[in-house]
């Protein structure tokens, strides 16, 4: 097992190197002159040249690349020109916010989608099956900003059940000592249940928005994969041996059906992590997606590079995790390590 993980880690090295090169080049060819943007509209050509020189943008590309990589090795992703902070501190402040939102959203989606998909497959053609189809279709058809706004309108504006959609915490609540960066966990560790409640109340609507959107792929995949497995010979054997329904569906069918579902989960997670900009905007969530978009608009390339790099590394890590999970579920995969 360890050997397999080691081998898989080694194969990720080339892709990480590739990502570093591509992000570096990509940000250099983006339209917009960073120096001109920061010098302001009234700046003289001389001032612009000065800024350019300060940023090192006047040096040849290879030289810029070398200094970029050298800094990277030291864990320095550069300075953000818009926030004035180092990119690494910006990202480490914002990534947990996105991660927490996405994780909770995905867990919510799984809590609904997996049982629904399994039930829809087991009772094919019943009302559960139809419900599954409606939920899945509705979930993907509604854009996230629309579901987000609708939820805010109903639960904040009309019913008043949830707090104002303004970030991760109530303005009056104080942040717990930072351990993981995930507020739900940090508050629990600090035994600050008041803040936990506040963080949870802030989180629930955006997480729900994400969950509704990601319901569809997970439900559909679970249903299809369960249907295929339920038709398999070994399920017939299990039934013919008199095993109980729980055993047949839970132990025999579901574990086999999990394989494609795990892949889908990984894809949905990595997609959500980078692409929930709209949700972050609607709920004023200080996440990494909105950070990257703001940097892009400002032609601030260091945060973009940092963002793409971090995302790529997380993607690689996530794929590794999925491979390991595969090995745990399916003994046949372990051999290929």
């Amino acid at each position, binding site marked *: 097992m360890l050997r397999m993980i080691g081998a898989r880690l080694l194969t990720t090295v080339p892709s990480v190197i590739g990502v570093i090169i591509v992000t570096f080049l990509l940000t250099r060819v983006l339209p917009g002159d960073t120096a001109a943007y920061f010098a302001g509209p009234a700046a003289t050509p001389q001032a612009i040249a000065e800024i350019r020189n300060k940023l090192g943008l006047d040096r040849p590309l290879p030289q810029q690349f070398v200094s970029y990589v050298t800094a990277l090795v030291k864990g320095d992703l550069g300075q953000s020109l818009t926030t004035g902070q180092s990119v690494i501190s910006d990202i480490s402040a914002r990534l947990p916010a996105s991660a927490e939102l996405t994780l909770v959203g995905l867990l919510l989606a799984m809590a609904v989608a997996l049982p629904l998909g399994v039930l829809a497959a087991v009772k094919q053609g019943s009302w559960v099956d139809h419900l599954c189809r409606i939920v899945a279709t509705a979930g993907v058809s509604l854009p996230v900003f629309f579901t987000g706004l609708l939820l805010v309108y109903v639960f904040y504006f009309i019913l008043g059940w949830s707090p104002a959609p303004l970030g991760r915490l109530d303005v009056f609540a104080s942040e717990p000592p930072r351990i993981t960066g995930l507020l739900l966990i940090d508050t629990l560790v600090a035994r600050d249940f008041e803040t936990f409640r506040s963080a949870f109340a802030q989180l629930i609507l955006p997480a729900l928005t994400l969950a509704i959107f990601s319901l569809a792929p997970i439900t559909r995949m679970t249903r299809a994969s369960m249907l295929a497995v339920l038709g398999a010979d070994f399920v017939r054997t299990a039934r*013919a041996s*008199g*095993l109980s329904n729980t055993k047949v569906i839970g132990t025999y069918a579901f574990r086999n059906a999990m394989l494609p579902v795990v892949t889908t989960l990984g894809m949905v997670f990595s997609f959500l992590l980078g692409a929930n900009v709209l949700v972050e905007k609607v709920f004023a969530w200080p996440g990494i997606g909105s950070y990257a978009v703001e940097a892009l608009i400002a032609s601030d390339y260091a945060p973009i590079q940092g963002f793409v790099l971090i995302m790529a590394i997380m993607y690689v890590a996530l794929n590794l995790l999925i491979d390991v999970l595969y090995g745990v579920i399916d003994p046949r995969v372990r051999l290929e390590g």
Partner: protein
Amino acid sequence: MTAQPLLDIRNLTVEFATRRGAVQAVKSIDIQVGKGETVAIVGESGSGKSVTSYAVVRILDRAGKVAEGSISFSGIDLVTADEAQMRDLRGREISMIFQNPRAALNPIRKVGKQIEDVLLQHVQATGATAREKAIEALTKVKIARPEERYDAYPFELSGGMCQRVVIALALACQPQLLIADEPTTGLDVTTQKAVMDLIVELTRERGMSTILITHDLGLAAAYCDRVVVMEKGRVVETADAADIFRNPQHPYTRKLMQATPRIGMSLADLLPEASSGPPAQARAPQAAPAGTEPLMRVENLVKEYPRPATGAFFAKLMGKAEPSSPPFRAVDGISFDVARGETLGLVGESGCGKSTTSMMITRLIDPSGGRIVFDGTDIGAIPAKQFAASPQRRRIQMVFQDPTDSLNPRFTAERAIADPIMRMSTLNGRDALRARCEELARLVGLPVELIDRFPHQLSGGQKARVGIARAIALDPDLVILDEPTAALDVSVQAVVLNLLEELKLRLGMSYLFVSHDLNVVRLLCDRVIVMRSGAIVEQGTAEEVLGSPKAEYTKELLTAIPHPPA
């Protein structure tokens, strides 16, 4: 038959709901199985034999339901019993063994655990004793080193071993009735014999009743007390095994009997009297006159595969050369000739290298060594990738094992037959192509009006004909037949075998017939090669090799075949 049968099926009708209304798969059948009795249900595909057994255990799929009749098992009515009661009976009183043992086991659960599941379900063991009892069950089915096998996954076991595990699973709770649904289809003859002997031994020991569902009359005759013959959902004949073969009453039974290849009969004997065409001329030995060059000469042919080395990745990464283990030799230096107009049989069990050999000869894979001289040219020297463009390509064609899987599901029969013509021939124009396809269809006995159909609209026998028409479309000199009838019912097999023989005589082709069915090989082949672990064990004329075999292995193969009484 005992006064009180263990299983009493009366007037059973099973219906399947389809888009075109209810279809009766089983029509008012009566079957009784006494205590300790072994009954065979014999029939071709679609006869309803499997559906009957599923109805007994009540594992019909959603669309199927018992429309009429009763199934009584030691006094319990299985049709009206509630689901909880059925669950108790399944596995504890009535067990099933299935075709394709590897698929019948959960691929990601240790086999020992799967046996434990059944034991625990039926309270035959407690958590503390389950492991011990599961190992005991594995020991009973004669699995070597059962403690180790307990932790094995199905993919780590051979087909025969998987079937033993399935039997252990079925017999773990000492049921009274065992239903074996084609338990040995797809297994080698020697494995088949071992598995069947094991089933008979274990069931006899415990005084169990057995229902053996099979399409193989030989198997039914060799292992059963009584035989029930089914055709299209009806029972057409029930008789003692000894009588039914000596004196079959129903015309369908007679037809089945006749179509089953046996010793001492000719190809034409397989067909019903009425439909046999002009008598095929007595098959004089077709071997070419001495002195002429054989069509194909294979010399010292070798195919090696590297063994999967553990940790090869790291070794490569470190640039270290592995102490290389010798590669696996799938084909280990074999030599033989194929004469013009001859049918050469290539026989052996799975893994013996016969398919690898046929793939090298058709130049789909490259040999590791040796020569394949075809009509004077060493085609073994042409890389497999370039052979498709070689003019020799059209002269060597192949008919594949599964007539369904070897046809593109989105090509009509005509398009499938035309495919090689469009690729390799100079024949031009739609009309000429169409005419040639129709001519080929007539040649293989495929009704011309069917050639616009897609594979799923054709029967198994018709698909086999399309495959044959495609292979002979370019007038090849050598056709490799890779188990062409393995997936067909015996009556269809009889027709297809006769067709092949007739085509060979008419078109002057040579056949390389790859098969594991010695009875079929005996009928069709002039000469036979017996292979084992990549090497030739014995070769000679069909009469010599199969009549008075010299090698131990050939004898073993021959005695493993269950024979219906002639």
